[in-house]
């Protein structure tokens, strides 16, 4: 299937832990994104990479570090998790400037 995939789908962890979320797209897109969606469904862009280069870096704590090993992958590492990090994290991809296609989301719960 051609799609944007994320792992894991659910992530429950303790405060202070470090965790990673992975994203892969096989759509041949050159741009990938990470979004955070809060409990009120507000979608906030966090990062965007174009051809492995960081092009959008919103005001996000530096505990969040994206890594793009190649154009098809964009991972998100989070250090020292806090309660407020609990949210749904979506990966998306697009050709630059065109429609973004979203993954199924990773539901993060920090206890």
């Amino acid at each position, binding site marked *: 299937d051609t799609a944007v995939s994320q792992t894991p789908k659910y992530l429950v962890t303790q405060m202070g832990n470090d965790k990673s979320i992975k994203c892969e797209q096989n759509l041949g897109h050159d741009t990938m994104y990470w979004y955070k969606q809060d409990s009120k469904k507000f*979608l906030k862009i966090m990062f965007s990479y174009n051809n492995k280069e960081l092009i959008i870096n919103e005001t996000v704590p530096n505990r969040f570090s994206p890594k793009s090993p190649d154009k098809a992958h964009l991972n998100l590492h989070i250090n020292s998790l806090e309660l407020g990090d609990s949210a749904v994290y979506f990966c998306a991809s697009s050709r630059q*400037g065109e429609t973004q296609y979203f*993954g199924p989301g990773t539901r993060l719960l920090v206890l």
Partner: protein
Amino acid sequence: GESVGLHLPTLSVQEGDNSIINCAYSNSASDYFIWYKQESGKGPQFIIDIRSNMDKRQGQRVTVLLNKTVKHLSLQIAATQPGDSAVYFCAENFAGNNRKLIWGLGTSLAVNP
């Protein structure tokens, strides 16, 4: 950038009726507009888009209208079905902004059988 204190607008319609979801966009330089549908437990899914050189575009059961004068976008869904129940987002995009989408808050559509 958080939505603290804001509530997701809700539109409730009867099955078979037409639905109209409205969106006020923020930037007069925006030249590309997109509607997304997000079903419960899933990621946002592209529905339809429109460029600023058009004022109307039709898809299957959906129509997007763009009024640049008042910076208003609407999504019309004909003969609304239970499967249309979801949160709908409008997003705007313009060159010179790293092509970063600016997202609306979303509208929850509830279809009553």
